[in-house]
């Protein structure tokens, strides 16, 4: 453990330098600032950007109770034992009512990661952070890529994002990874249910967890059939139909069997991405998603400001009076906000206005 003294009001630069030097407390604080969003988060993103880009980003998703956290814990131990430095971002939902959350992923992992505290030199190579969705999906779409980049910049590899596969943003986050792992279990309904969930299209690797339980082979068969159909209809699940077929890996995370197979399949997928020249495409897609999310958030903030401005209030009042339609009011406000149209000759390298 690093012993650099860290003052309570250390600057972001100091925190970043300390974290790069192995100070885990500093990294913990940086992650809090990333989660908080705003200017500090942007500063951290700028610092991390040049140092990041090497990590294999893996998304793990599946229904609640599928065993994602337990599997993640197993993978972390497996990877740390093999000399890797895995980081985990475990995303759990916040209560929409109170904003509070019970982040319970660590307890599932601690069942399997006891070894990490028993062998501190292994524990020091791993970093696990829980993140609550905090009710605003927009925030999650911004915070997750930044946190991943920060882990990446600190030399953690792979960076594993674990989310419950409900909600578009959670699915998007996993779909934007280099490798998306979808965890299925017996007894959760047949492949029709799985098709409905919309998770299957994003899978690069399927894991049938709880493979020691009855019905595990049925899940495997259903998935196989579903993949056959995808090929038949030309609706290839990944990478534009160039022949990659997601493998189905059986495992029992609780028993501790099969996690090495899961990781082998994840690595094989990364190699396959490279061979097919798709890794860059994934990266491009991921960055596009993030840039878009940032713009959406920035625009949403400006829209809120505009709505609260005198002009905004006045326009809304006119609509209430019947003098103006909602469409007319929003067009006027948008014009005031953005100008009539984006100039086509915009130089991407020039400094942003305002």
């Amino acid at each position, binding site marked *: 453990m690093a012993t650099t*003294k860290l003052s309570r009001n250390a600057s972001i630069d100091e925190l970043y330098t300390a974290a790069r030097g192995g100070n*885990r407390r500093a990294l913990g604080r940086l992650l809090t600032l990333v989660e908080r969003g705003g200017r500090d988060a942007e500063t951290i993103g700028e610092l991390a950007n040049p140092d990041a880009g090497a990590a294999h980003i893996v998304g793990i998703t599946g229904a609640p109770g599928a065993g994602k956290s337990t599997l993640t814990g197993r993978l972390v131990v497996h990877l740390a034992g093999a000399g890797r430095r895995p980081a985990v971002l475990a995303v759990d939902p916040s*209560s929409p009512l109170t904003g*509070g959350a019970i982040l319970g992923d*660590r307890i599932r992992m*601690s069942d399997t990661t006891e070894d990490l505290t028993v062998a501190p030199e292994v*524990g020091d190579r791993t970093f696990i952070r829980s993140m609550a969705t905090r009710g605003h999906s927009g925030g999650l779409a911004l915070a997750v890529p930044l946190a991943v980049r920060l882990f990446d910049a600190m030399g953690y590899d792979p960076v594993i994002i674990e989310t419950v596969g409900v909600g578009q943003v959670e699915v998007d986050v996993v779909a934007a990874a280099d490798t998306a792992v979808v965890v299925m279990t017996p007894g959760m309904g047949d492949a029709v249910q799985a098709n409905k969930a919309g998770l299957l299209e994003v899978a690069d690797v399927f894991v049938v967890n709880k493979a020691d339980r009855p019905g595990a082979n049925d899940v495997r068969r259903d998935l196989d059939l579903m993949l056959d159909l995808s090929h038949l209809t030309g609706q290839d699940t990944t990478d534009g139909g160039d022949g990659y077929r997601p493998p189905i890996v059986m495992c029992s995370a609780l028993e501790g069997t099969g996690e090495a197979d899961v990781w082998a399949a994840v690595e094989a997928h990364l190699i396959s991405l490279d061979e097919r020249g798709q890794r860059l495409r994934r990266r491009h897609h991921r960055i596009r998603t993030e840039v878009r999310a940032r713009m959406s958030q920035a625009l949403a903030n400006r829209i809120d400001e505009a709505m609260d401005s005198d002009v905004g209030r006045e326009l809304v009042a006119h609509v209430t009076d019947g003098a103006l339609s909602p469409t007319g009011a929003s067009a006027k406000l948008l014009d005031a906000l953005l100008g009539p149209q984006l100039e086509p000759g915009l130089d991407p390298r020039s400094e942003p206005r305002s």
Partner: protein
Amino acid sequence: MAGTDLPLRVVLAKLGLDGHDRGIKVVARILRDAGMEVIYLGLRQTTDSIVAAAEQEDADAIGLSMHNAGHMTLGPNMVKALRDAELEIPVIIGGIVPDDDVQPLLDAGIAAVLGPGASAEEVAQTVRDAVSAAV
């Protein structure tokens, strides 16, 4: 962007060999409903595993549930482990602690002790007070 009023992050754990986890689960729910983010570690944690979690999760407070009469040893051990790691995070003990032990625990650096009679409001407020006292 996000307001300054961020949810407090609280690590909850049972330290050592102590299987009575009904209480800590109730406390987890109480803190969640009070708008906090609870990082729930559950049973059989060690001071090291709690320090590691608190560090990685950037915890604002640590809540220990104790029903095995180990509080006089484990409580101060926890405080020492945090100090050794240079983490100034308040530790709150909840559970079964005899009245006579409360003051010695506070003297040893425990931020607060909550007994079985504490109301939900009291639990949440104690955590908030401990955090603001520590800052």
